[in-house]
Every structure is written in structure tokens, then in C-alpha cells.
């Protein structure tokens, strides 16, 4: 109850528009005809309406409205009016409005009621816990929804990438074939200047083919369509064959590829074509970034249920932290080899994913005397075989 004196006191909780939500106190029956949802303007006779609206506008501007004298209809005698003092302020997400017979009583009533007119405190701890749980569940639902949406977009992106790469590949083959023809088989050999230009066209086209093949591979892997053709294979034999092929590439840069495999075969369940791709990427990178005269070593060892291929170079060296960044697609794009070679920026990303598809992994260690060793482990049993 309000402590002030006077027969007429009215306290209302309203929304911000002045519509009544609750009659907190009504001594003297001033609000006897006020209903939920009705504007407190209903208290004022026609001649007091404008002032009541001005008061409501003042209430909308915190912190305080001040005290307003407004004539209202006298209870029991609607033809007569009586002066009443209105004050109020923001309260929860609405307004608290108090009216009394004097300015002092109105101010006192507002002070007394502000804490009392708080929402009922029966919303106990269980309700609060429920509310928090609801919020968490709602947030989790929004996350799950956005996760599903992102996955859908990612699939779309991979499909698009696959189509785009495939459609680019065909015209490139035409450019490659015709530039090759003009270089080697045209009835009139090109002039030295034109030969140079044709070499550039051919070299650029070859790089684009490499890039597109990598993109197609990556799109396939990311769309979960990398089907491994697992065969029990001696990894040493794969490494030796690959070393011989890449050795020729290395010779052009005055580097040497040395393959070290144990006498006993190390047989693992692998997809030989994909493992060859891994070796091409790792040895290709080593050749690309090694200084002339240096040596690249490919070792095959057995360890911890896995066959491990390790490629050591004498290049600038890569730390494990740098590798984490380098396995992101396009992270090494634009990085040039020691002979000016370009990089698609996709080789390491593909290598890591091929290793993971086998149930294996890729990691790097500094090599003694500078350079790095890239290791790839392939489980001997293969990814889906029983242990």
C-alpha cells in the first residue's frame, strides 16, 4: 500500500504507448472503468485529453517525466472534474504511472511503488533454469540449421567447381595440342621469336591443366567422392618407380633424387595411383624448392603399424606450424620455385586428404643440416580393414 495520505491514489503498469497492463493500486476508484489494453487517456475528460497526451510523451523521455497536474473525471460524478498529480517513469519494458492528490504524494507513491511493482517473484529457480535451457536449445537449433545450410552450400560449391574445371579442361587440351603441333610438326617451322611465344603458350596451358586436375581432385575429395582402389602393394616398389620418373625432372634442375628402401618389401593396403600422386607432389615440391646441386632423399620405412614414406630436401625448411597453413588450398599459391616454377597451391592439400582417406597422416620435421622431411604414413591394414 502507498503510505501517503489522501483519498485518491492510482498506480498503473502500462506499455510504452500508455496502454494499461495492470492496475497496481486504486484507492478511491479512479481507475474503476480502466481495462487491460485501454489507454490511460480514458481517465481524462475531453478537455484534459491534450494535457494527458503531453504527459505520456514526457514519460517516453527518461529519466523522469516531472509531475503533471491533469484534471480527471471525479469518481461517482462523471460530470465533475478534480485535479490530480501524475508522475511516472520507465519500468521493466513499459511504464509505471502514479497519480495522487498532491505533487508530494505522487512523488512519494512513485518511490514506494517502483520496487513493489516488480514482476511477481514466483518465477522461481526452475523457471529461470527452464528459460536458460530454452535459450540454449534455441541457439543450438539455429546453429544446427546454419551448419546444415553451410554444408549444402559447400556441396554446391564443389559441384560447381567440378563442372567449371571439367568444362575448362576441354578447350585447354585443344590449345595444348595445337601449340605442340605448331612447335613440332608445322610444315614451316616458327621463327625463333614465335617459337618462344608458343613455348609460353604451351607452358602456361600445361600449368592450367595441372591446376584444373588438382581442382577436380580436390572437389572430388571434398565432396566425399574419393574412391580408393585399395590393393596390397609394396610401397618400396612404388617409391623406386616414382623416384626414377622424378629423377629426370630433377636432373633438369641439377638436383638428384635418391630412393632408399629396405630389402624386405613393405606391403600396405593402398591405392597405388593415389600414393603415386602423393609422391609426385612431395618430390615435385622438393625439386621445385631445392637449390641446384642438392640431393632429395625418398625413404620408405616401417613403423607403428604403418608404412612411412619420407621425402627429405635441402630447401629453405618448413616448420610444423607453417605446414598447418600450407595444407590449406591455395595457401602456397604464387610461391615460386628456385627455377621460377609456379605452384597451384593445391598439392599439399590433396596430399593430406589422400593420406587421411587411407587412414594415415602427413607431417613435417626439420631435416638435419637444413631443409625439411615430409612424412606420410599409410596404415599397413588400410582404412577399412579389420585391425
Amino acid at each position, binding site marked *: 500500500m502507498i503510505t501517503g495520505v489522501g483519498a485518491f491514489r492510482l498506480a498503473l503498469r502500462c506499455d510504452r504507448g500508455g496502454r494499461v497492463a495492470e492496475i497496481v493500486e486504486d484507492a478511491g476508484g479512479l481507475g474503476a472503468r*480502466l481495462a487491460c489494453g485501454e489507454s490511460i487517456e480514458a481517465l481524462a475528460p475531453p478537455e484534459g485529453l491534450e494535457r494527458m497526451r503531453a504527459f505520456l510523451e514526457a514519460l517516453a523521455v527518461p529519466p523522469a517525466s516531472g509531475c503533471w497536474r491533469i484534471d480527471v473525471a471525479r469518481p461517482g460524478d462523471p460530470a465533475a472534474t478534480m485535479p490530480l498529480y501524475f508522475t511516472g517513469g520507465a519500468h521493466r519494458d513499459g511504464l509505471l504511472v502514479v497519480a495522487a492528490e498532491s505533487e508530494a504524494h505522487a512523488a512519494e507513491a512513485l518511490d514506494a511503488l517502483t520496487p513493489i511493482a516488480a514482476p511477481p517473484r514466483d518465477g522461481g529457480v526452475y523457471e529461470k533454469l527452464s528459460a536458460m535451457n530454452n535459450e540454449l*536449445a534455441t541457439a543450438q537449433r539455429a546453429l544446427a540449421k546454419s551448419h546444415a*545450410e553451410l554444408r549444402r552450400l559447400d556441396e554446391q560449391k564443389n559441384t560447381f567447381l567440378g563442372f567449371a574445371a571439367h568444362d575448362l579442361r576441354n578447350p585447354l587440351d585443344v590449345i595444348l595440342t595445337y601449340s605442340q603441333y605448331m612447335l613440332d610438326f608445322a610444315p614451316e617451322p616458327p621463327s625463333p621469336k614465335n617459337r618462344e611465344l608458343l613455348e609460353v603458350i604451351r607452358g602456361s596451358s600445361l600449368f592450367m591443366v595441372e591446376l584444373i586436375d588438382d581442382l577436380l581432385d580436390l572437389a572430388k575429395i571434398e565432396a566425399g567422392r574419393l574412391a580408393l582402389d585399395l590393393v596390397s602393394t609394396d610401397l618400396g616398389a612404388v617409391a623406386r618407380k616414382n623416384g626414377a620418373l622424378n629423377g629426370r625432372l630433377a636432373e633438369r634442375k641439377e638436383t638428384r633424387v635418391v630412393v632408399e628402401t629396405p630389402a624386405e618389401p613393405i606391403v600396405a593396403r593402398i591405392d597405388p595411383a593415389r600414393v603415386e600422386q602423393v609422391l609426385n607432389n612431395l618430390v615435385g615440391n622438393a625439386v621445385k624448392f631445392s637449390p641446384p646441386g642438392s640431393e632429395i632423399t625418398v625413404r620408405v620405412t616401417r613403423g607403428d603399424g604403418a608404412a612411412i614414406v619420407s621425402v627429405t630436401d635441402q630447401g629453405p625448411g618448413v616448420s610444423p606450424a607453417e605446414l598447418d597453413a600450407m595444407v590449406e588450398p591455395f595457401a602456397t599459391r604464387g610461391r615460386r620455385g628456385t627455377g621460377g616454377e609456379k605452384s597451384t597451391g593445391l598439392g599439399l592439400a590433396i596430399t593430406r586428404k589422400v593420406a587421411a582417406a587411407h587412414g594415415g597422416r602427413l607431417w613435417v620435421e626439420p631435416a638435419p643440416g637444413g631443409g625439411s622431411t615430409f612424412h606420410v604414413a599409410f596404415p599397413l591394414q588400410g582404412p577399412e580393414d579389420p585391425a
Partner: protein
Amino acid sequence: MADESARRAGQLLGARRRALAERMAAAPGHDAAGEAERRADAEHHLANLAEAMAAAQPPLFEEYVAWARTRLVGRGAPDEDLGRTLDAIAAALRDALPADAADVAARYLDAGRRRLATRPAPPPSFLDAAAPYGDLARAYLEALLDGARHEAGRLVLDAAAGGVPVRELYLHVLQPSQREIGRLWQVNQITVAQEHYCTAATQVVMSQLYPLVFATPRIGRTLVATCVAGDLHEIGARMIADFLEMEGWDTFYLGANAPTADVVSTVRDRRADLLAISATMTAYVGEVRALIAAVRSDVATAGVKILVGGSPFNVAPDLWRQVGADAVAADAASAVTAAADLVPRTA
């Protein structure tokens, strides 16, 4: 018009219910110890009376009286207590309301007393072993009541992994279990703590099913679903959002207690085709009406189709029209049909 005077009387009472509840709880002749509980009970009675009157729907109050009797008898209150409380409310309203409004209230209270005189029985169990997945629902609930939420969750997730559609799990396992939990609380067989535990566990299970829910190709229609302010019983509305998500709708669930302005701005920003509003008790019907009025009064959202649901709409079949909605749905499955009717596919 009788309906209009009932509405007016309900709104008059609605504005005074808390002050009245306080006065009734503090009345002489009661011990001080139970005052808070008496006040909460009285306010609940008055809120339901006011909303039934404001909706001009006596059955809403009669149904509430039957519900309250079960709840109070379950807590060990003498059978005649509620009748006495209704008399006390009638007397208090004679002083607090204008005579015409008090007369209306008296008619609603009489209808409540008549219902009370039939000694309404507690509702029967919501679980039926013969119903589809009845055994699974029973096992799920029993695990929850044992406090074994992981075990309960595993039962449902295993069924989903075994090919039982999420819709069936919602309709035949989670929904009846939640209703049964509410019933067990009403008849005082479980505590409020157990009720909240079970509900939280069900929400976790639903979220674990989300990878299956959010997997349908989109059909280009958008739903915003919400409970009204104050209503924490939100699983029903969440189920409706999930059902429409599984139909390919884009759904935005605002949860319990969403402020009106947020609902309006979400409907506007998401260009929603449909707004689904849930109110699980009569006391929240006024909030539904106010929310719909706010949505209709904003030019950007005035045209959105509105679907309502919840227990009061099942008790009073024409209440949905009266609050300004376009349709009503009794459960998540019928919400799908109603949504398709309200927002037909264009192409």
C-alpha cells in the same frame, strides 16, 4: 452484446488480478506461512478467469477448474477447498469490479462450480502400449524418470538409426511422453524438478536428431514459430518448426518468451509466409491476441498467415478465429496440413 460485455469484464479483471490476488492471500483467517503459495494460486485462478471472460469462452474456465482440482487434490488439499476459493473470488470481485462486470464474472464462476460438482477425474495416462511405438515411449519415459537421460536418448537415437522416421519419434514417443510428464506433475506423482529434468532431456534428444531434421531440400517457404511471452512450455512450438523444416520450409524458431517487437521484426526481415504461435494455457490467450494485433498493425507484416495452437485452442474450437488467426492446428502433424493450405505452393 453478451460477448462484448464478457470481454470488457475480462479486461477489467485482467488489469486488477495481481492486486486482487495479493488482497485475497493476505485476508484474515489464513496462516501467514502459506501466503506466497496462496497468492500464486489465486493469481493463477484470476488470470484464467480473466482470459476465459476476455475470450467470452466459459469452457476455458470450466476446463481450468477441472485441471486445478486435479492439481490441488493431488497436492493433498481437501476436495472442497477450490469451491471455497471460487466463492471467495466471487465475493472479492463484487468489491473490485463494476456491478455489470462482477455479474459476468459470477456467471463464469458458477459454470466453474458446476464443473467442480461433477468431481472431474484426473486425465488418463497419455501412454498407450497399443499405440505405435507405445513400448518405446514407455521405455523412454521410464528411463527419464529414473534420471537416466543418456539411456533414454540412446533408445530414441537407436530407433532413428534403425530407420524410424523423426516424425514418428516426435509424434509417438516425445509428444506423449511430454504430455505424460505434465500429467504426472499435475497429479503430484513427480516433482517440478523431475518435470524440468525430463523436458530438458527431451530437448537434448531433439537437438541430437537435428542432422535428420535439417536435411530436406528447400521449397521456398518461410515459417517463424514462437511461444508467447511468459509461456515456457515450448516443445510443442519447436516440434511444429521442426515438422515444417522437414517439409522443406525455412524455419526460424524464436523460443519461449520472445518479445513482441522481436517477433514482428523477424516476420518482416525473414519475409515469413507463416507465423505459428503457441499458447499452452488459457492464461496466455490474451498474449496471443495482443501479438496478433501487433503483427496485423505493422504494414510490413499485416499480410502474414497466422497459425495458432495449444491446449486452449483445443478446448474452445472457435477461439483461433476470435484471436485473429487464420487457422488452428491441434498438433505438429496437423500443422503441416494447415500450413500447406494457408501457403499453397505457387509453381
